[in-house]
């Protein structure tokens, strides 16, 4: 039977690789847009970014669950692990939003630059999460210049988390209703 720590390494490599590719493609897509160049690369970058993002997103739950399973005392016993969890879910939420926007709404109504920025920020969250993993296992990573991410965690009380979820869902529902009325 494969150990959860080994499985975590495999899944995080899938997530990081996919998200890194997606982030690079989102960035290049924005560069081409900015230069206003009509190029065959543009649709290629756009498609690759979204497919890679989808692939990374599919591997993300396995990475998060195996990560929780492989931590000796649970993510709540270390600010670094807690930040890993919060960053990965933040990146996952952004990625989900980007894909949903692209799939259901075909990106219309959203600035492509903003869309790409959300995709890139999602990648940044995942890479920072992976870097924190390096700090946790090897006490060394490329983000050693960010000590506050390793030592502090901004934790919300449970009731506030529920309020935020309720507010977001309400806002989404209201926007949806408003859009329907306009139509």
């Amino acid at each position, binding site marked *: 039977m494969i150990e959860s720590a080994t499985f975590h390494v495999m899944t995080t490599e899938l997530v990081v690789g996919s998200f890194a590719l997606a982030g690079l493609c989102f960035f290049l897509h924005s560069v081409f847009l900015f230069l206003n160049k009509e190029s065959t690369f543009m649709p290629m970058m756009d498609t690759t970014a979204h497919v890679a993002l989808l692939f990374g997103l599919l591997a993300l739950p396995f990475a998060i669950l195996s990560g929780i399973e492989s931590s000796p005392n*649970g*993510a*709540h*016993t*270390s*600010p670094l692990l*807690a930040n890993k*969890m*919060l960053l990965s*879910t*933040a*990146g*996952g*939420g*952004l990625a*989900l*939003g*980007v894909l*949903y*926007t692209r799939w259901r*709404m075909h990106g*219309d*109504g*959203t*600035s492509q630059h*903003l869309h790409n920025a*959300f995709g890139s920020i999602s990648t940044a969250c995942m890479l920072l999460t992976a870097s924190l993993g390096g*700090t946790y*296992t*090897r*006490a*060394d990573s490329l983000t050693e210049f960010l000590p506050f991410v390793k030592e502090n*965690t901004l*934790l*919300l*009380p*449970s009731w506030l*988390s*529920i309020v*935020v*979820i309720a507010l*977001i*869902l309400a*806002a*989404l529902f209201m*926007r*949806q209703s*408003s*859009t329907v009325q*306009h139509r």
Partner: protein
Amino acid sequence: MKQKLVLFLALSLIVPLHVSGNPGGVGNGLENMQCGGACHGDANQNATSNLQLSLQPSGTVWVGQPAEITVQISGLQTSHDLDQIGIFLLSSTNANGDIPTTDGWSILSDGMGGSNNYIEYSSFDSAILSHSWILRADDIGEKTLYVSVHHGDNSGTNAGSPFFGVSQAFTITVEPIPENLQRIHPDYEPPLAREVGESTKLCLETIAASGVVLEWREPSGQTYQLETNQNDQCWEAELPAALTASTVEWRAVLDGEGPQQITPWFSLTSVEPTWEADETALLLQSITHLVFFFGLVLLFRTTRKNEDELKDYMEESI
């Protein structure tokens, strides 16, 4: 353009080939020699350490009794320019089953608040480093111990490479304990760590001891005697709380029919209270992050769409 891209990709592939082990260390733990090759990625890339390594027990090693094993590492900052060093206490050099606990030893203390065979130092006061483990042998006979080191080097021809060194085999003879010799109970486990501001109640179980004096000393070396009370076979005393993260040591002086017995100094490390968050709150916040950032992307989109519709409507009206 293509040439630049190829050059960039080639450089990207070359850069990660520089191996520097784990410059931040891996933390104290129970590790086999070379951590099974995992500490430095590939054991074949290790350079040989020039540090001199020695090991010796502080006195007679009785079976079932705590024994102080002191390792000495010399040549620090003269043979190598070090920032950090990892020290192993091993029972073999097979890189598998090397931990002394697999060879009839119990590690009662690693001197750093744990019971590990691998410890790390990140600062050095002199060119010679001495460190003691408290072990307990579970059976009589001759046993072998090794000391091994892992470190880097900031200068010299192999600067940046991981270095590895292992000592010769040191034989330790474990002797049977004389009958009626006053001693600590063979099952006694000393406390290893506590939180700052927390006093520690010691309950030392003994055999054939008529009197026990407990002593403790500060990191500065000043020694104090504790008030000790007997309660059945347990000698009770209370170690005062530490005000900052530090390590104090304590020992017992046992009187009885045999010659006076003095235990090794047991280390007791005081650490800052550990960080712990509410697990449910953390899980809930993770879900909140997922929903919040998902909603954020959608809300931005909707806002822009409405703005565009308003713009179209205005243009049509005009």
